[in-house]
C-alpha cells in the first residue's frame, strides 16, 4: 500500500506525466487488492452452508475485485509500467487506512460476518454522491475521485503524447506502448463479474476504468452497475447496494432508488451463523508452537504464493492465472480450517472468539514463493506433446 499512501499524502491532482500515471495505476492495484482480505474474511467466517445469499453476494464482489485488480494490471502494462504485487509493501496491514478518502474515516479492520462488517464494506464502496461535501474541502473524498483523476490523466496524457509526436518529434504517437503479450485476456480469466479484456488504446483503457468504478458504485446515480450494457449480461446491483441488501436483510425492488431503503423480498440473514474473530489478531498472538500459529503462518505463506503467481501472470505469463485458481480455492479451505478453531487464549475463547488468517506477509514468504512459482512454471505441461519432455 506504500504507493497509494504516498499519493494520498500528496493530495488530489491529475498525473502530470506517464511516469506519474504509472504510479497512480500501481496505487490502483493496491487499492483494489486492499478490499480482498477484508471481504474474504467477511465471507469465509460465514459458517459453511449458512447465509447462502450473503455468502454468494460477497463472493460475487470478491470476484469483481479480482477482475478490477487484473484490469488495473492491464492498464499499467499498457502504459509501459510493471505491476508489482509480490512483496510485503503491496499489502496493507489491518486495520488499514482507506486511501484517497477523508482521513477522518475509521480504519478498515478484518471483521467477521456481522452488521458491523457490512457497514465497513458499504463504507469502502460508498458512491461519490453519498459522500457529504464539506464547504471549502480540497483533500481526497473518495476512491471514485481517484479513478476520475486516472481517467482524466489518460485522456490528457494521450492527447499530449499525440501532439508531442506531431509537433515535437516524439517517437511514439501514443502512451500505450506496453508489450501486448503482457495483457491478460479472456482466455486466461473470464466470465465471473464481467470480462477481462486487453487494454491497448485509449478506448479500452477508459472502458477498463469505467468497469472498475461502475461495478463498485453504480452507474450515474442508480443502484445498477453497467455489466449489462458493457458485457451483455443480466442487470445486477452495484457493490454498495449488494452489501446494503445484506445489511438490511431485504433485496432491492424494481422501483428502488439509491437513496431509498431496499423494499424487495426478504433475505434470510442469520448473523449468528458466523465465526466471531478478533480482527486485530496477529500471528504473534497465537502461542508459539501451537497448531493454530502454524496454520496461520501457513495461510500467510500460501497467500504470498498466490500473489507471486499473480505477479507472474501480470508480467508476461498470463497463463499462470490458471495455476493461481487452485491456490485461491486453497485459501478458502485454509481459512475455514482456521476459523473453526477457538482462539488459543482461553479468555478470548471464552468470549467465543475464533482464530483466523491475519494476512501478514513478510519478505521470506515471498522468497520461498518465488522458488515454488519458478518450479510451477517449469513443470507446466500442456496437451501439446512437443512442449513436454518427460
Amino acid at each position: 500500500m506504500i504507493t497509494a499512501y504516498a499519493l494520498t499524502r500528496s493530495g488530489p491532482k491529475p498525473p502530470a506525466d506517464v511516469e506519474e500515471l504509472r504510479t497512480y495505476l500501481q496505487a490502483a492495484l493496491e487499492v483494489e487488492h486492499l478490499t480482498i482480505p477484508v471481504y474474504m474474511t467477511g465471507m469465509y467466517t460465514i459458517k459453511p452452508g449458512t447465509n447462502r445469499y450473503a455468502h454468494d453476494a460477497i463472493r460475487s464482489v470478491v470476484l469483481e475485485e479480482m477482475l478490477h485488480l487484473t484490469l488495473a494490471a492491464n492498464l499499467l502494462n499498457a502504459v509501459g509500467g510493471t505491476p508489482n504485487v509480490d512483496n510485503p509493501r503491496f499489502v496493507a496491514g489491518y486495520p488499514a487506512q482507506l486511501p484517497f478518502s477523508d482521513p477522518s474515516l475509521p480504519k478498515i479492520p478484518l471483521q467477521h460476518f456481522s452488521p458491523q462488517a457490512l457497514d465497513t464494506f458499504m463504507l469502502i464502496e460508498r458512491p461519490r454522491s453519498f459522500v457529504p461535501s464539506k464547504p471549502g474541502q480540497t483533500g481526497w473524498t473518495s476512491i471514485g475521485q481517484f479513478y476520475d483523476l486516472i481517467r482524466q490523466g489518460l485522456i490528457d496524457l494521450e492527447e499530449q503524447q499525440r501532439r508531442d509526436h506531431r509537433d515535437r518529434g516524439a517517437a511514439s504517437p501514443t502512451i500505450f506502448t506496453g508489450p501486448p503479450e503482457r495483457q491478460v485476456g479472456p482466455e486466461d480469466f473470464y466470465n465471473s463479474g464481467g470480462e477481462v479484456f486487453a487494454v491497448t488504446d485509449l478506448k479500452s483503457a477508459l472502458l477498463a476504468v469505467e468497469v472498475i468504478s461502475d461495478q463498485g458504485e453504480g452507474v450515474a446515480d442508480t443502484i445498477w452497475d453497467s455489466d449489462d450494457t458493457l458485457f451483455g449480461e443480466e442487470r445486477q446491483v452495484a457493490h454498495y447496494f449488494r452489501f446494503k441488501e445484506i445489511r438490511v436483510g431485504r433485496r432491492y425492488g424494481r422501483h428502488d432508488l439509491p437513496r431509498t431503503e431496499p423494499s424487495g423480498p426478504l433475505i434470510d440473514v442469520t448473523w449468528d451463523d458466523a465465526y466471531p474473530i478478533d480482527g486485530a489478531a496477529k500471528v504473534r498472538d497465537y502461542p508459539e508452537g501451537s497448531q493454530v500459529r502454524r496454520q496461520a503462518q501457513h495461510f500467510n505463506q500460501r497467500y504470498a504464493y498466490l500473489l507471486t503467481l499473480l505477479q507472474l501472470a501480470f508480467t508476461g505469463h498470463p497463463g499462470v492465472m490458471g495455476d493461481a485458481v487452485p491456490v485461491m480455492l486453497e485459501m478458502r479451505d485454509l481459512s475455514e480450517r482456521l476459523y473453526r478453531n477457538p482462539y488459543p487464549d482461553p479468555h478470548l475463547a471464552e468470549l467465543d472468539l475464533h482464530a483466523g488468517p491475519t494476512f501478514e506477509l513478510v519478505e521470506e514468504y515471498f522468497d520461498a514463493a518465488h522458488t515454488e512459482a519458478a518450479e510451477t512454471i517449469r513443470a507446466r505441461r500442456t496437451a501439446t506433446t512437443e512442449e513436454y519432455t518427460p
Partner: protein
Amino acid sequence: MTVTTTGSAVNGRRYDVIIVGSGWAGSLVARHLGKQGWQVLVLEAGNGGTDTWAGYQDTVDTFSGAVIKVPNAAYRRNAAAPFPDVLDLSPTADPPGYTTTGHFVQTGPLPYGTDYIRALGGAAMHWLGAVPRMHPEDYATRDRYRYGRNWPVSAAELERHVREAELLIGSAGDATAQWGLGVVPDPDYEYPMEEIPWSHQDWIFQDRLDGKTVRDALAGVDYALKVYGLPQGRNSTPNPLFDGGYRPRGTVGRPNFGERCVGNSSCTPICPVQAKSSPLRLQQDFTDSVHLATRCVVSRVLPGRGNTVRGVEFREYGDPATPVSTPYTAEADIVVLAAHAIENAVLLLASEMANSSGYVGCHLMDHPTMLAWARMPQGVPVGPFRGPGHTTGLECFRFGDGRGKRAPFRIEIGNWGWGWATGAPLSNVGAMLGLGGDAKGEIKKEGVFGPELRNRLGDEINRQVQLQIAVEQHADPANRVTIDPRRHRDGVGNPKPILHYDLDKRVRDGVFAARKVSQKIFAALGVEKDFTHHGPGPDGVAPVGYFKHQAEPGGEALDLAYHGAGHGAGTHIMGSSAGSSVVDSYQRTHDHPNLFAVGCGSMPSIGTSNPTLTMAALALRSAEKIHRDLAELHQPVTLATEGTR
C-alpha cells in the same frame, strides 16, 4: 428467457409444435423453432427449479448429502414421473443373476444397468459431458463389417450439424488430434474452446504407453497405443482460433457468474460451478414464443385425421411425492417426442403409433462397460480424484479390422481412482479402519487409525488407476422395450417399460477382448498389481452384470462383468425403409407425417462414442426439417376450380 406455463393454462390450446421432453434433443429443437418464430410448447414430465440459482444449489446439496454417489444422487425420487436408478439392481447368488425393483421391469438374461432422469434438462443433468465424435465407419458397420445396421445418413451429411452441436453444447477439444484420429474431416477445424487440461495421470499414461504395441489375440490385430484427449462439453479456455471467437456460457439463474472447470470431480452427476454444459443453457435462449411446462407427463399421442396426429394427452401433477394428477390435452401441427429413448418407445407403444414395422421398442442399446482396476507401484502416485471423470482415452480399439471379429471398444482412462469399481475412496477408508467386523462379529484386528490411516490412504488411493472400457453394442431386435399396461403401470397409470436385454456373442467377445487387452495395458503401464475381479466374491455372490465367457471353443473362460454406461439408445431406429425402421433420416415417423421421434432412440448404431453429440446433431437436422414442414403447411393452397382449363 424461458416462458414457463402450466398444464392447466395450455389445456385445449393449439400450438405450431409440441415437444415432449426438455433434454438436449427437445431443447435444441425448441430453441431452433422458437428463433424461427413458431409457437412451441415444451412439456417436461419431471420437476423444474434447477434453472434458478437456489434450485440448482439445492441439487448440489442433495448430492452432497447422498450416501451413495450414483448418477441420480442429486435428484429426488418422483412418484408421478418415476425414473430408474442404478441402485434398483441387486445381484442374486443362486442362480447367479439379478433382481430389480423400481421403474423398469426386467425379463432378460442380463440386466440393463443404465438409468436416466426425468427432470428439467433430462438425463443431461447427470451426464459426464463427454462429446467424442462418431467415426465415419460407425455409420456403416453393415456394409463394412457385416454386422449391425447402416445409417440412412452419412457422417459427411451430418458434419454441418455436428459442428453446430459442438458450438451450442460448448465443446472443448483438440481438433487437430481428433482429425488425426479420423473423426474430424477438416484439418483446419477448431473447437470453440481449448482442450480440457490433461490430468497428471494422463501424462503418466502417455509417458508409459504411447508407441507401445499390444496384441488383441481375439481380433488378431496388433494395436499401437496412443493417448488422446477427450472432447468435452465443459467450459475451458476460449479458443482464439475458433471462427468468430467464443464466449463461454456462465451459470444459469445467476447474473455474471460462471467458471471454467476447476476440477471439482463430481461431473456425474453435478458440477457445482456449472462449468459442465447442460440444456438449461439452451433454455435461456428460448424466445417468447416457446412455452415450457414442467410436471406434465405425456401419456398418449392423439390421433388426427388420416394418418396424422392431432396433439397429446398429458397429466399435470402438483406434488412430485404423489402421483395425483389431472389430465389435459394440447394440440399442434407437429408433435415431436424428445423423451429418453426408452420413454419415447413406451409413449409410441402406449399410443399404438408408428409401429407398422413392429420395431418400436426393438434394438435397445447401451455401451456395456467393463471396468479394470490396478495399483501403480509405490513411488508412482497418479493423483486420482481430480478433474473430470476422464480426460483422455485409448482410441485404437474402436476402428478398423478388429471390428470384423468382435465388438469394438473405447478405453477411458478414468481420473477417479477405483471409484466406480469399488466405491473408493470411502471403501478404502472403511477397509483400513477395519469396519464391518469379522465373521464372528468381532472388531477386525488389522484396522488402523490416526496418522497411519492417513498415510496409508494417501499412499494407496494415490496409486489407483481404472480403465472404463465401453463396448459397442449393435442394434439387435431381441433387446427390446415392451409394455403390458394390464400388469405393469406406474403411479399415474402410464405403462412401465419392460426390458428384455442381453449381450450377444459378438458383444461378449468384445468384453472378453477388452479384459485381455486391459491386462496387457496394465503390464505395459508397469502396475504393481491388477486388482480386477469380476467373479463371485467371498460371499459367493457375483456382481450385477456378471457372466462367464469363452470366446473360442476350448479356449480360456473368463469371469466378466459390465456396467450400464447411461447411453440408452435404439428403440425407434431410423432407416430408409418403412418396413424395417420406425423413423426416416429426419426422425419423422414413417407412419405419421407430422409425428417426429428424436433422440438417441433414432440411432441405428452408437459406435463407441458417447451418443449425446451425434444425437444433438440429429436434433438440429430435424429442427431444420420441421421448420420447412411448418412453412409448407402455411403456404396458401391453390385449388383447381371448375372452369379452369
